[in-house]
């Protein structure tokens, strides 16, 4: 089966489509040595993300094995995750520093 989406890290909960995928078509991607698939429930544009699971509002979206931010509404499996239903989680630098045990 020819793949049309990429899973970057095995723990990701989205894949990125590498072709325009029309609603109703299968999205196929490789996970380790397996080819997995799911149905696109809406049109997914080239290089955009599709949900691999049902997201509730405020769920973390994971790609590269890291958080891209959170959903701003519930997004069902097979739906499009994009800037209209996701947001960055604000952080501040000062909270990102770690304790170096008084060494500076």
């Amino acid at each position, binding site marked *: 089966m*020819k*793949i*049309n989406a*990429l899973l*970057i890290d095995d723990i990701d909960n989205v894949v*990125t489509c*590498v072709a325009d995928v029309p609603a109703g078509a299968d999205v196929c991607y*490789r996970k380790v040595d397996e080819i997995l698939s799911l149905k696109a429930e809406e049109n997914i*544009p*080239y*290089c*955009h*993300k599709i949900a691999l699971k049902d997201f509730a509002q405020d769920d973390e*979206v994971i*790609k*590269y094995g*890291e*958080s*891209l*931010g959170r959903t701003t509404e519930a997004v069902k499996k097979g739906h499009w*995750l*994009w*800037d209209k239903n*996701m*947001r*960055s*989680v604000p*952080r501040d*630098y000062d909270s*990102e*520093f*770690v*304790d*170096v*045990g008084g*060494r*500076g």
Partner: protein
Amino acid sequence: MQFWGYKRSEGRAGIRNHVLILPTCVCGSESARIVASQVRGAVNIVFNTGCSDVQANTDMSQKVLTGFACNPNVYGVVIIGLGCETVGHKPLREKIQAMTSKPVVSFGIQEEGGTLKTIEKAVRAAREMAAQAGLQQKELCDISELLLGIECGGSDATSGIASNPAVGELSDLLVDMGASTMMSESIEWIGGEHVLAKRAATPEIHNQIIQVCKDYEAHLLAAGQDCRAGQPTPGNKAGGLSTLDEKSLGCIRKGGTRPIVEVLEQAARPTKRGAVVMDTAGFDISSITSMVAGGCNAIIFTTGRGTPTGNAIVPVLKVTANARTYQMMDDNMDVDLSAIISGEKTYKEMGRELVDVIHDVCNGRLTKAEAYGFSDIAVDHVCRFV
């Protein structure tokens, strides 16, 4: 893994053996260009600064000039100065000679009586140096002598999901073999700095990574500029990048996943081996300039839209995962990674293939930008590039 390179008395081996015609400042640049054009084996840079400047900019200019001279791909240096610039040819020569035992000679245009007389002497000096450089034999060098700079530019939606992960895989494989890699463009870590910091080998390095981003953002804010405004851009969003986190994560992925063992100031030489990062602008030409000054002997450059850039002394290898760009820009692109997008190969497989390509470049395979003799340079300054 070993490659055929040019051993140097100090530091890493070179993968090229250039005679560098080095202007002290903008006023020596045209003469340097003419000298290099007259001597096979010589290359020049066009330096757009080096005079009438504040101390911080003079310091950066000196770091770039001495760094280029000391770069392992350089056999010897012919300096061309004017005579009234901030740091003249003699003090620059003495500074370089204190850092390296490679041959260095210098001339001043005002002392010699004008450009033609300077060019005549400098061509003779460069000719003799190139003749000697031709006698240096390549020797087998361990891959640990490689310091690969990693750059991206002209990115598109394929960069973050295909070419950057493939180059990240290459970086991991090289680091595992004992080589070193350098990722720069600190302004593009912003939004993903907390993830990059997780790779820090020590808590101190973790904090240095965060501090670099905090300082960069504060530096721009001091000038009333907000580097987060409008990020991701409308074009990024249309290309599938929904948050700044996603954009930054795609960018930093090109540096791989191995522990970061050192955080370097711009144009500084690493003191550790392994994966290192350097605080530079996101402006690709400036970033490459600083990494070359820091001693990188090869650069790999991921692109989506395609770019022609090259460096005078260090081969710049262009890779793209955009099949159309590879076809349209065939004369500038070195490696086609579009098999990742078509699903024929994984980014890990392409990363493994890139090891062989980099090995070939170390052994002397010219990159396309190198074959054209491209010599882009941009020296950063106190009001930093972005």
